């Protein structure tokens, strides 16, 4: 067993974990943060995407021991005081989800993408989300939502 301390969605945790415990299992099974789903066994789908020290990673392919001392943001930590993040709001308004399974990963990957490129072209959104698969929407509304969120974020944070 190894001892880790990690901050998840603004709360500090200290835990004993087995080295083989995957970050996504730590989040879901240990912390009860089931907002982060598991969609594949091959690191392809991106459903499990979280932010590790601010950058997107696939939490199914990171060990919990590797994030000792780090800061994690899951979908459960992106709203503040009950107010949705602009990306969440735009996904809702543009109907960017159907079953919703890919959505937590899509939202976090989009937040990461918008940090680098506050005004992404359609092509840039498609490139930026290439690691996130959606089996329902056909992506068009997702692209629209990300660009709408970008616009809103540019207005609200000048």
């Amino acid at each position, binding site marked *: 067993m190894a001892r880790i301390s990690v901050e998840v969605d603004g709360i500090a945790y200290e835990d004993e974990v087995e080295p083989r415990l995957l970050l996504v299992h730590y989040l879901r099974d240990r912390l009860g943060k089931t907002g982060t789903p598991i969609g594949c066994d091959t*690191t392809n789908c991106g459903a499990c995407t979280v932010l590790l020290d601010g950058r997107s990673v696939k939490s199914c392919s990171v060990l919990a021991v590797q994030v000792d001392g780090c800061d994690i943001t899951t979908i459960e930590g992106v709203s503040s005081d009950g107010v949705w993040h602009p990306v969440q709001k735009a996904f809702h308004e543009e109907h960017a989800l159907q079953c919703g399974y890919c959505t937590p990963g899509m939202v976090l990957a989009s937040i990461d993408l918008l940090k680098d490129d506050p005004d992404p072209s359609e092509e840039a959104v498609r490139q930026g989300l290439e690691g996130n698969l959606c089996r329902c929407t056909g992506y068009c509304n997702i692209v629209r939502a990300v660009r709408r969120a970008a616009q809103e974020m540019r207005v609200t944070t000048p």
Partner: protein
Amino acid sequence: MIPASFDYFRPSTLDEALEVFAGAGEEAKVLAGGQSLLPLLRLRLAYPTAMVDVGRVAELRGVADRGDHVHIGATTTHDEVVRSPIVREHCPLVALATATVADPAVRHRGTFGGSLAHADPAGDLPAVALALDMVFVVRSSTGDRTIPAADFFLDYLESALQPGEILTGVRVPKLGPGWGFHYEKFHRTAQAWATVGVAAAVRQTNGTVEEVRVGLTNMGPTPVRAAGVEAAARGVEAGRNGSLRQAAEQAAEGTDPPADLHAQPDYRKHLARVLTHRALVSASAHRSPQT
């Protein structure tokens, strides 16, 4: 699936890493970004008994300009490589190829050295390492040695690294003025591995090709240097209408491409010829204004 159990070590210096690695037994593995290793563990295709996580060894990370070459530390992430102004200026082919690796989340974790040490012929960086004659810097508890790229890739997923050796970094020679670069990758879906990839560097003077380097991805159990193309392209006219097409016809010579769901060997050979032509034309058009 849940990976099988292993012992985990997280050294903070290279000396400590070498010591731990030397004592951790034959089935121990270095863990860098984990973007090849952890998927294998999850599928229970690999069973290391111990993992030596080098992710926090500061000496292994970062890009440095060393005069005649650029040194890229083994644990520099793909994302850091793509963003590095030194890499973009002095070895743009590395930046171009790395930007096509996987997807942003994988590039945030996966490392330059891990991609090379993994020695996957379908990986994009081994062919670039061959084409640019990179030199691998390796350390073990008994000392340092360097391995030229041409001697590093031995077989499918097999490199020249010996038990107990850690790849510390890679030297990328600067090619000097007059070179243009391109990485041409053919794949079926956005984040997929290359069905075939071509790394090309072209040096020209006044529209005449002086020198060409070509590395091929996924055309055999190791990355391949297309020596036939390199010889045939010397002295020909650059650009789409010149004789680069005839030179590119040599691309499949001496290759032994795999058969899988995505392509049979004959189709891969066809792709190698077509993509090599595209890569040479683009490389000669995109000459960098280097000094």
